[in-house]
């Protein structure tokens, strides 16, 4: 127990220490990318529209006349204290973009992820359990094809069918305009906001809006999970303890359900968490397709407007999120599965 405690602490410390250079590298990358961009942020957004003197003034105010190295450290400092500046074009605090639009993205991705887990795990287990049968083949093919279909194509088909042809579900947005207006935004998660105010009709409206985008994105991720679960189950079923259980004469079905399934899930759940990056990328496209006011849609909008401060801020947050999520998952993993620590 004691030695385990020590090794756990050692692992956590090492893992934390490793996260630091990763954060630094990512932030450096973001800073570098934004400086490679043609022109500085201020002239890119405002050039040609303000007199040169004012441009100069604004650049000075933004600290852009400082030496690059100073700007770099300034940026690092700001990023680490989550002071991400204010957008050039519409004077919004980047942190408020993250709260308002980030919550939309989180709501979408969490719903999608929940769906992906259910679909992915069940199909993956089935495919693995019935290895090399038609069930396996169709399960795998489903996974491959659903992953091969870009979200904007799946979304387009879903919109054509469920919003256009059948008219069952709204095709875009996060809520009906009037619900959007009436809604008290407490948590910025609409499902929760409508629940805590007990407004069931609004809840239903929000839920309806969530279905198409969440299913589209969720199916994509389920494609990834199917493979993962299947392969893991196959690996576990060849494991010693499963063999041992078999040898003890325990019925195959019970072996699989009691031993293999459970053990196959441990790596799956942790690795699944690492689909975060794919999820974020997919969310950009899903948001674009379904007019979902998330942070990915905002990123694209600000990129189009060349608002580099906004772009830099949003990417910085993405980078930090990726590091934090993988850190948290590794730590959880370490608690669950002692083998990881060595």
């Amino acid at each position: 127990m004691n030695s385990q405690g020590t090794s756990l602490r050692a692992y956590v410390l090492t893992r934390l220490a490793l996260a630091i250079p990763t954060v630094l590298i990512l932030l450096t990358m973001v800073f570098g990318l934004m400086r490679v961009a043609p022109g500085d942020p201020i002239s890119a957004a405002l050039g040609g529209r303000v007199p040169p003197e004012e441009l100069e003034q604004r650049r000075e105010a933004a600290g852009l006349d400082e030496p690059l190295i100073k700007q770099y450290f300034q940026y690092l400092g700001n990023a680490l204290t989550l002071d991400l500046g204010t957008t050039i074009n519409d004077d919004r605090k980047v942190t408020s973009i993250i709260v308002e639009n980030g919550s939309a993205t989180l709501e979408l991705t969490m719903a999608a992820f929940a769906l992906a887990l259910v679909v992915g795990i069940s199909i993956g287990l089935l495919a693995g359990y019935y290895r090399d049968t038609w069930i396996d083949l169709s399960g795998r093919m489903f996974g491959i094809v659903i992953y091969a279909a870009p979200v904007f194509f799946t979304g387009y088909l879903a919109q054509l069918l469920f919003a256009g042809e059948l008219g069952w579900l709204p095709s875009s947005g996060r809520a009906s305009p009037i619900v959007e207006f009436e809604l008290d935004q407490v948590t910025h998660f609409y499902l929760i906001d409508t629940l805590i105010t007990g407004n069931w009709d609004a809840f239903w409206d929000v839920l309806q809006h969530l279905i198409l985008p969440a299913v589209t994105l969720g199916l994509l991720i389920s494609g990834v999970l199917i493979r993962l679960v299947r392969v893991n189950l196959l690996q576990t079923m060849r494991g010693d303890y499963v063999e041992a259980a078999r040898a003890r004469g325990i019925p195959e079905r019970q072996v699989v359900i009691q031993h293999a399934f459970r053990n196959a899930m441990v790596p799956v759940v942790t690795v699944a968490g690492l689909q975060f990056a794919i999820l974020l990328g997919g969310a950009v496209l899903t948001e674009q397709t379904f007019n979902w006011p998330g942070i990915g849609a905002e990123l694209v909008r600000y990129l189009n407007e060349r608002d580099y401060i906004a772009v830099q801020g949003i990417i910085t947050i993405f980078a930090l999120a990726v590091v934090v999520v993988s850190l948290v998952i590794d730590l959880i993993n370490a608690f669950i599965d002692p083998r990881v620590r060595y």
Partner: protein
Amino acid sequence: MRTPRILKPFAQATGMPRTLLYSGVIIVLFFVILAIFAPWIAPYGFDQVSADGVRFPKQGAPDSAHLFGTTVQSTDVLSRVVWGSRTAIEVVVLALIFSLTIGVPLGLISGYVGGKLDRTLVLIMDALFAFPYLLLAIVIAFLLSDKLGQGVVTAALAITAVYIPQYYRVVRNHVISVREESYVEAARALGAKRMTIIRRYVLQNVIQNVPAIATLNAADAILTLAALGFLGYGIQPTEAAEWGYDLNRAIDDAGAGIWWTGLWPGLAIVLLVTGFTLVGEGLNDVLNPVIRARRLRKPKMDEAEVEAEEEPSHA
């Protein structure tokens, strides 16, 4: 005659992996043929809007003159799908060449030399790998488009940046395990030059893992290209036909019940990506039946050895 190493998996494949592998190869070949012979297969040019002085209908439904219908710009959908496969294959090939020529040598050197260089590179590549790949591609495509314009090369470079870390990791991990193999030790003991060892022994051995990753990455490359096109950071519509861009335009048609402008380019993407994935999965199954699909994994150093183990094929 001995089967060339790279074709070995095809000969070894049986059962389901064989089915996957072969159907994948057929699909990919189909698109490669479309790509190469596009000028002969496509009924019209990708931006042609009239033939013999007669203008094509705008958003015309599929009929005998235009099997897949026409777009909002009066171009022929079938022709655009065919020419689109040329664009897709071009970008994939370029992206593969770029990322192989950078990723593989980096991995080889880093893995073989080890030490500080190795540790630094691993950190950088891991960081790159962790970053949401689509965002990286978007930002790079966006930045490059100012310097290189929005063409095939820009798209390929944006995709390359995403995949270098993957090749790097696989190759490096493999090299680390191969480095300790007895025949490499022997060569070193015999006084072979470092570069010779890397080239003759390590590279030879490592290279056979590349096709599986390359095909899986090719699938992802097609998706990334389409996503770039969909978001408007891809290839200029006047430079080449590109499926993602066509889908983007088709979404505007969808509401008006015009399904043919989006369905075909969309299906083309799905089919080609499926083809590449099948080949990749098939190769994986054959080379290493318990290997986890590469791109799904988080890089973790201690897994290098597991992965590098070459198990005999289970049929």
